[in-house]
């Protein structure tokens, strides 16, 4: 479903973020990317979201080489990849409802459909009572749950979660990972990057370990080993 074909990213001759990465991710897989800070996990995620372009290599989403798409085709792909970030990246001047509705409205969905879907995802993340709140009025855990609601509301094929538990306490972190597992069980592919050893060991899913821009391990039911 997703294939990183010999991806390299070099910011300068002295700063190599990714080196010759080959990685294939199948539909409905739950893949954890682990590695120390600077290992290249986030850069790899940015390649998938087209936030950055590789210096060489290609990223395929199904059969599409996503870095060769026309700019107007990119939103279509991005709607099929829900993203969750460590710093939540919510729109601060929009309410919880507006944050989740934004991409749906942009896609031209009708109001009734948007309202029904948002009600459903807020139920799933347990934030129905915060629908009119602004991100500034929410706790870290709540913000991350809004971010997850926003990521899944378009029913994407893939959820990319880049250190989603990095700014959360252990209880909230556990809840977020449980949510991601649930989303995976419902049929979405999940790519998770994290430093959290307990999270990885508890998942018992595929673990890809990175170091200095390279993949050094790829275990089917891996554990956190660094």
């Amino acid at each position, binding site marked *: 479903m997703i294939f990183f074909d010999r991806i390299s990213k070099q910011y300068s001759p002295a700063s190599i973020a990714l080196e010759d990465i080959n990685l294939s991710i199948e539909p409905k897989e739950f893949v954890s990317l682990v590695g120390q800070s600077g290992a290249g996990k986030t850069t790899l995620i940015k390649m998938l979201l*087209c936030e950055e372009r590789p210096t060489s290599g290609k990223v395929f989403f199904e059969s599409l080489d996503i870095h060769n798409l026309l*700019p*107007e085709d990119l*939103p279509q792909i*991005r709607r099929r990849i829900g993203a969750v970030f460590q710093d939540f990246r919510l729109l601060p*001047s929009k309410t919880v409802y507006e944050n989740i509705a934004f*991409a749906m409205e*942009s*896609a031209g969905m009708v109001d009734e459909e948007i309202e029904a879907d948002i009600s459903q995802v807020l139920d799933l993340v347990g934030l129905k009572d915060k629908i009119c709140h602004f991100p500034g009025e929410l706790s870290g855990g709540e913000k991350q749950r809004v971010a997850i609601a926003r990521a899944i509301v378009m029913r994407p094929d893939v959820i990319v979660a880049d250190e989603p538990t990095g700014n959360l306490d252990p209880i909230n972190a556990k809840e977020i990972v449980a949510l991601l597992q649930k989303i995976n069980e419902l049929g979405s592919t999940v790519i998770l990057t994290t430093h959290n050893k307990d999270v990885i060991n508890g998942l018992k899913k595929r673990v890809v370990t990175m170091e200095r821009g390279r993949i050094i391990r790829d275990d089917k039911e891996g554990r956190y080993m660094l």
Partner: protein
Amino acid sequence: MFFITLKRIAKNGVISFWRNRWVSLATILVMVLALFMVGALLFSNVLLSSALLRLENKVDISVYFRTDAPESEIKNLSSSLSGLPQVKEIEYISREQALEDFKKKHQNNSLITRSLDELEGNPLGASLNVKAKELGQYEAITRFLEDGVYSSIIDKVNYSQNQLIINRLSGILGASRRIGAGVSLVLAMIAVLVAFNTIRLAIFTNREEISIMRLVGAKNSYIRGPYIIEGIIHGVLAAFSAMVIFYPLTLWFGPRAERFLGGPDLFAYYLANFFEIFAVLLFVGVFLGVISSWIAVKRYLKI
């Protein structure tokens, strides 16, 4: 679908304008300044043009005829002059009129009055006051008078006496126009640049939001739209505010400027041309708001 999107863009623009009201207010204030400059340039142009026009109207040349010049020939010359493309206006002053005017002018001077009484006839000749369409055309008219077939009946043409003043005035008026246009252009450009950069700065603070919108799969037009709507709102409110400011300002300054420059009353001009001035400010304001927003957002739509 198109109308739903348009409605959503407009709604998002209005909501964003209101929620960021302090930034919106700051942007509008700077735009008011820019539009105030544009309006002030309009008003000063009216004052300057009218002052220059009045000065130009004060310039004419007088053609004095010999006392024995037949009136029929003077009339012929007058109609020949009227045929010249450079001539705007001709006023004929007969010998009798000239004498009467002279007497009236010197009625308190007993020496002149007595001297005139002692003279048997009318010592004054008829004259023509000629106004050209433009200052630079007086020389051509003078040449026509002095070199033409009527030179025998002409006593003198006062152009040569006034030549220096006319040329100098012509130079000053031309320079005033050029300097006025140059200064206007520079000031308007400064004002526009300041407003443009304020809007860019306001959008710069939203660059993170724009990148998030891109990452969740929003189309560029859907991201840009609300900023354009905000730009339009800024322009409309700034134009309206500038018009409100001009009301008391022209009311206070108008009569004073009229007394000082003898020009039109700016307040009357403001009232008479209210919708035209508002249309100009509205166009400049909305154009500035839309273009600045468009350019500023474009920069962050590359992710």
